């Protein structure tokens, strides 16, 4: 069976932080879509599972200059140094329980392979990985609403955002049934993208110039001359990635008009930001 193995996708996301209201719809839809279990007491956020987590950032200024931004943070689906697929988590997993899809750019998690060493969690600087400290439980009656397309996870394994991979599989199945070689942009959208009432999340193939996410991000296909580990840097001056300097090469991009928000995306030494804030990739001048 031949199913579109010719073109490598690179699914990614751009989140407009100026549109995000922090409503949490993306978190709720994600939990619902992916059968994420509940704890009886969810007050301790450091051991509750939220594949999509929304951070609240402030500019640190007092009233009336205070500004707040909400930053949704799914798994960043890192391509790793040089974008070769050796994501921080994938490269350390001792049992290949998490893997990098070279055809999609998606970092997968194989729940039945994971034996719960949690090395991947230590490797991830984004805290995007969650451990099942308890047996999965849902409020009574809610088991009836579990999605049949997503396997629930057992106690003692790590889980994380999968870019709703089951939706990709479903879209591919339909395309195959209809004799098409590829899927359309609208056919594969993550739950958080479709749930966002502000339309702040745009999802698609970063490799496909026809996709909106590509058009917004304008990813630079060349390695950054300033840091050879960085590939796919956005050539849009308003777009940035989290901790880009580490060379993790995330596929989640963020968009903001506000400079302090873009600066919050990474760590800078004193005076460094002013030197590089207008630097947007190797081939900017060619565009």
């Amino acid at each position, binding site marked *: 069976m031949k199913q579109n193995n010719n073109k490598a996708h690179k699914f990614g996301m751009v989140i407009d932080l100026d549109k995000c209201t922090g409503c949490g719809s993306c978190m709720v839809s994600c939990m619902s879509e992916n059968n994420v279990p509940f704890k009886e007491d969810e007050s301790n956020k450091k051991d509750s599972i939220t594949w999509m987590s929304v951070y609240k950032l402030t500019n640190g200024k007092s009233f009336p200059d205070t500004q707040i931004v909400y930053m949704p943070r799914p798994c960043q689906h890192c391509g790793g140094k040089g974008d070769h697929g050796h994501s921080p988590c994938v490269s350390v997993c001792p049992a*290949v329980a998490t893997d990098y899809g070279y055809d999609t750019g998606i970092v997968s998690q194989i729940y039945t392979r994971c034996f*719960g060493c949690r090395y991947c969690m230590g490797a991830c600087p984004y*805290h995007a990985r969650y451990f099942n400290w308890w047996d999965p439980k849902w409020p009574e009656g809610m088991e009836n609403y579990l999605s049949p397309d997503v396997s629930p996870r057992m106690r003692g394994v790590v889980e994380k955002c999968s870019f709703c991979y089951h939706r990709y599989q479903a879209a591919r199945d339909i395309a195959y049934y209809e004799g098409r070689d590829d899927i359309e942009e609208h056919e594969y959208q993550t739950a958080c993208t479709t749930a966002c009432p502000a339309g702040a999340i745009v999802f698609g193939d970063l490799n496909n110039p026809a996709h909106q996410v590509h058009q917004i991000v304008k990813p630079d296909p060349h390695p950054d001359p300033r840091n050879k580990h960085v590939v796919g840097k956005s050539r849009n001056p308003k777009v940035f990635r989290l901790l880009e300097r580490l060379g993790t090469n995330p596929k989640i991009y963020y968009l903001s008009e506000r400079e302090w928000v873009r600066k919050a995306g990474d760590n800078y030494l004193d005076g460094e930001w002013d030197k590089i804030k207008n630097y947007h990739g190797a081939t900017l001048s060619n565009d």
Partner: protein
Amino acid sequence: MDSALIPEGAKRCSFPKFAIGIAIVSAVVLWGVFAMFLCWFKGLNQTNMNDYYGFALWIWADLAVIAVGGGAFFTGLLRYIFKIDELKNIINFAVIIGFICYSSALLILAIDIGQPLRGWFIFWHANVHSMLTEVAFCLSAYFAVLTIEFIPNILENRQANKVPFFHHLAHNMHGVMAVFAATGAFLSFFHQGSLGGVAGVLYGRPFAVREGLLIWPWTFFLFTWSAAAFGPCFTLLVTKITETVTGKKLVKDNVVHLLAKISGWMIVTYIIAKIIDTIYWALVTAPSLGFTLSHFYSNNGFYGYWILITEIVLCGVVPGAILIMKSTRENPRLRLIAIILGVIGVCLNRWVMVLQIMAVPVMSFDTWALYFPSWQEIATTILPVAYGIILIAVAYRYLPVFPQEQELNTIEPVAEAE
């Protein structure tokens, strides 16, 4: 009652006294075993670990016991490969300590993983890119080597040695022990190193990440070197404790001085490398990622510069200096201070390379994460210590662990007669 099992000519306490001592320590073991079963049956929710602290007390304990257990491979290397003959008088004990440390490390790992029944996946579905895979393979293989190294000593038990087969087996195993010592040193180089690599490859964690040689970050070599340097300190420390508890001199001073001297020079060379590594990381690696040194040691209630200074200066430079100078090395009090500081230093290094890594915020809007272990974690961490005490007590009572024991303790009756 058990005199037939006690090595000939050796003096041991009465059996009831021994049994009472073992019973007390066994109570601690039972407490630890209870906590262990709680973790296995109820899950890791019994701990205070969380999604920020996926690695915590146990992994520190694991790294620490492996580091201090490094005395076994290094002493074996010196004794069998470099033919430093005096060390034959302490090698048995070094092997037993190593055996305790490594069996404890494996037990801790078995408790630490979320799905213990899938533990074998690390071998079956091995990811060759993962340092943890290398740890698992080398650790298990080296534990097998340590068991082989321990067997001849067990077979030298007075009753076992009466069986001709066991007698000859022990004799012949001693004869080929150089092969196992070399194998052990090779395996240890890799698993001690890969434990260092576990932290050094975390390029998402600027506090841990290091440049290196080929696929190995500098922490790989630093961990191996530090285990070889501080492992003998632990061997000497446990020997001293055993001598104090038994009230006997068990190893001649010249042996102790020699091992202390070797350890001292290893510590000095290690600490020079560690200082260079720290300076390079602080001035080049971390700033290239947007971090200043102060980021890692401020804005939190625990991790300050004190931990860096304590590890490197107080527990590195100081013991190294004491142990390389003859006058201070041969002063029992100063030597004891040095080996205690050394053991604390290597344990502190492992703490920093596990827990501080998890605590340091990486994203600019993240905060420090501090953690305190649950009683179940503490009990299961104390468990190996209690198990070690029992194994040492049993081995000392029934096996000829210290070849110089009788020679050193036959003087006593003469002195009494005088």
